[in-house]
């Protein structure tokens, strides 16, 4: 509140418009004076009133030492004399020239504060708001009606030095002046335009970043987790939402109690990643809880040359079957969108994953981390078998590339090789290789990575 006066002084005049646009009007004595302008009969009394007001005003102005600035140091003491003068001198009479809008200076709206009035108008509490009965379209927004009001500005356009005109000019104290009709109309039009612009900006919808698709929270980033109590920061970690679900619990008192459950994954792109779920009544709180919980459950995932896994992994976690295949550089991530998000957080850039069976997000994430954590690196394989691990690439011809040597003893006897390898074949894969698979979704050109 800029001035020392109460928000809704009883003295203030108001103008009733459609939708109760303005609850308070400026304290301008201009209203009283406006009232006085039109009426011819009350002219004499108006003149007397004006003089008295002016005297009170000048006294008020004279009281303070030094020039008054328009903005600050409005002591309530300064204006009590003025308000007293207004209270005693001003008679509340409507202007004879009606500008087409109803103007009731003293009514129900002037008897209450802005907060009370808005509380009634918005109706945030009540039976309708409880238990999720409120409709999204019926939600009203509170608007500050005193925005743009300057004490001193009124419909008759008087220039009060110290209020809406400079107090001193070239060292001389200014007198009370009045704008011409055209100027006043211009000022009023400007004010109107400004108010409309504010309304428009408020109504403009803030563009929300799009995740996996519009209106879903999956794939959106929440930024890095909050710093820890001992000062540790997690600036290089990024969090991504995987799932947002409204879950309900039946309680004794309130019946269906809504709660938001969020599954979130964090990762720094260098192999450290983790996931967690957070539950709260409000979505924002649930995000925060999940984010800060996930940073405490990190897995380190070994990657081959920082872009893919070491070997093919196929596992079943509860009812979710995941089959991960190692791919060369440039292949990209051709997987389920949640797995793409998680792999980006881990730092895996090329992989093919097929998910069959249940696609429950939590089980999918848990199964993925389970499988990735239990990879066998080339060094571990070499140590286990006691043999060299040699890589053969098609693009390099017959060149053998030694990837890992056993740290312990090197075995002399070779690994037994059978003609028919003893591995379990996957029927879907066999169909695909034999060309028996008639699916429209295979070899579909998707967006890269």
């Amino acid at each position: 509140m800029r001035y020392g006066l109460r928000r809704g002084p009883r003295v203030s005049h108001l103008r009733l418009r459609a939708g109760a646009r303005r609850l308070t009007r400026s304290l301008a004595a201009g209203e009283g004076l406006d009232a006085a302008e039109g009426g011819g009969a009350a002219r004499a009394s108006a003149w007397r009133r004006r003089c008295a007001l002016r005297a009170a005003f000048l006294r008020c102005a004279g009281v303070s030492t030094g020039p008054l600035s328009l903005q600050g140091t409005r002591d309530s003491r300064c204006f009590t004399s003025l308000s007293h003068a207004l209270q005693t001198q001003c008679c509340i009479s409507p202007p004879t020239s009606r500008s087409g809008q109803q103007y009731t200076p003293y009514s129900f709206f002037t008897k209450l504060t802005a907060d009370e009035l808005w509380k009634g108008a918005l109706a945030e509490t009540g039976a309708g708001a409880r238990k999720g009965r409120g409709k999204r379209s019926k939600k009203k927004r509170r608007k500050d009606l005193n925005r743009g009001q300057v004490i001193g500005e009124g419909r008759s356009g008087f220039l009060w030095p110290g209020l809406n005109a400079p107090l001193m000019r070239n060292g001389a104290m200014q007198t009370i002046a009045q704008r011409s009709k055209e100027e006043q109309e211009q000022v009023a039009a400007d004010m109107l335009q400004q108010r409309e612009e504010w309304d428009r900006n408020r109504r403009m919808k803030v563009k929300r970043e799009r995740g996996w698709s519009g209106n879903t929270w999956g794939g959106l980033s929440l930024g890095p987790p909050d710093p820890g109590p001992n000062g540790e920061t997690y600036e290089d970690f990024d969090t991504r939402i995987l799932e947002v679900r409204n879950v309900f619990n039946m309680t004794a008192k309130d019946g269906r109690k809504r709660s938001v459950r969020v599954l979130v994954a964090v990762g720094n792109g260098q192999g450290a990643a983790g996931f967690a779920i957070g539950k709260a009544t409000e979505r924002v709180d649930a995000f925060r809880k999940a984010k800060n919980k996930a940073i405490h459950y990190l897995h380190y995932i070994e990657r081959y040359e920082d872009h893919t896994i070491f070997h093919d992994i196929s596992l079943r976690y509860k009812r979710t079957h995941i089959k991960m295949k190692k791919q060369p550089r440039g292949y990209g991530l051709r997987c389920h969108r949640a797995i793409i998000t998680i792999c980006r957080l881990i730092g895996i850039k090329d992989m093919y994953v097929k998910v069959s069976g249940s696609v429950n997000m939590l089980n999918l994430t848990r199964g993925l981390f389970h499988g990735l954590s239990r990879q066998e690196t080339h060094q571990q394989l070499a140590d286990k078998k006691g043999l060299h691990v040699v890589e053969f690439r098609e693009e390099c011809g017959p060149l053998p590339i030694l990837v890992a040597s056993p740290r312990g003893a090197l075995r002399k006897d070779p690994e037994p090789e059978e003609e028919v390898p003893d591995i379990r074949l996957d029927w879907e894969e066999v169909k695909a290789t034999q060309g028996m698979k008639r699916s429209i979704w295979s070899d579909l050109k998707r967006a890269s990575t």
Partner: protein
Amino acid sequence: MATLRISVPFGRLLTGSRGAERVCFRARTQPQPDTPLQPLPQPSAVRLLCRWLSSEAAESRSSEMKKPTFMDEEVQSILIKMTGLNLEKIFKPAVQELKPPTYKLMTQAQLEEATRKAIEAAKVRLKMPPVLEERTPINDVLAEDKILEGIETAKYVFTDISYNIPHRERFIVVREPSGTLRKASWEERDRMIQVYFPKEGRRILPPLIFKEENLKTMYSRDRHVDVLNLCVAQFEPDSTEYIKVHHQTYEDIDKHGKYDLLRSTRHFGGMAWYFVNKKKIDGLLIDQIQRDLLDDATSLVQLYHMLHPDGQSAQEAKEQAAEGVNLIKVFANTEAQKGAYIELTLQTYQEAFMSSHSAAS
């Protein structure tokens, strides 16, 4: 008559040493069938002639031994040794559709076996493309038919597409609009053979990359190997463009000292041969000494002496019976253009060698 008979092989004497030997033999045996009619026609004269012919043959033989070709075993062994065998560079990942790699668990013996197989495959890849003389243009007119003049507006090319003829012996003739029937030129022959018997990697019209400005761009990007590979695929080894592109590439490499680009490729031998023939081995020598390849440097100088045995350095080396570093020093002192540079690099190398030795001990 004997003289008559001898004169025919006499004309062929200059073709080759083998021919000379055969000629010599025939010259001795030919007069015999004539003996019943006449007495032996001055066998002394024949013998003198024979001896002269054999001496001629011997001289040509020795001069030919002094002038080795690219395909000689000695020359090839030296060039192969100089080319080196860097497996990583030879089996560089090719630009192709990538597949995930396969892994094998091997013992040390299996690993060595695999490496040996890779080395053999590498040796096959390093087989040098042939270095031939430029082919003489064909200007053979078979028939002039003025009666056909003005009837056609385009040339007609007739190619023999029988399958079992070597391409070099194929008949390809062109009937001009003016009525002349002539043998097709070498460029026309190559084009027609590519049309009917397409070879992989070869295009009918030479690609634009062989234009001057495009070649310059390729050189600026250090892609001399790609240029040479394309050239080998596109042109015949004895065509003008092939030789021109190769020489241009070698000159550019020499100008910028980018010898290492061709090391462990199949073009290194050709480049070394070109430099030795042109007597411009200084840059290559300096590069080899700087990379601590002294054996290669000495073998290069040996090759130089093999090809130019009448030169000053060859003579001096034979006198001093120089070996190793001394050979290079002899060369640097006598025939090199940048002799000072070579000696300087040799000095720095020896100092580094000494310091490393002392550090080791």
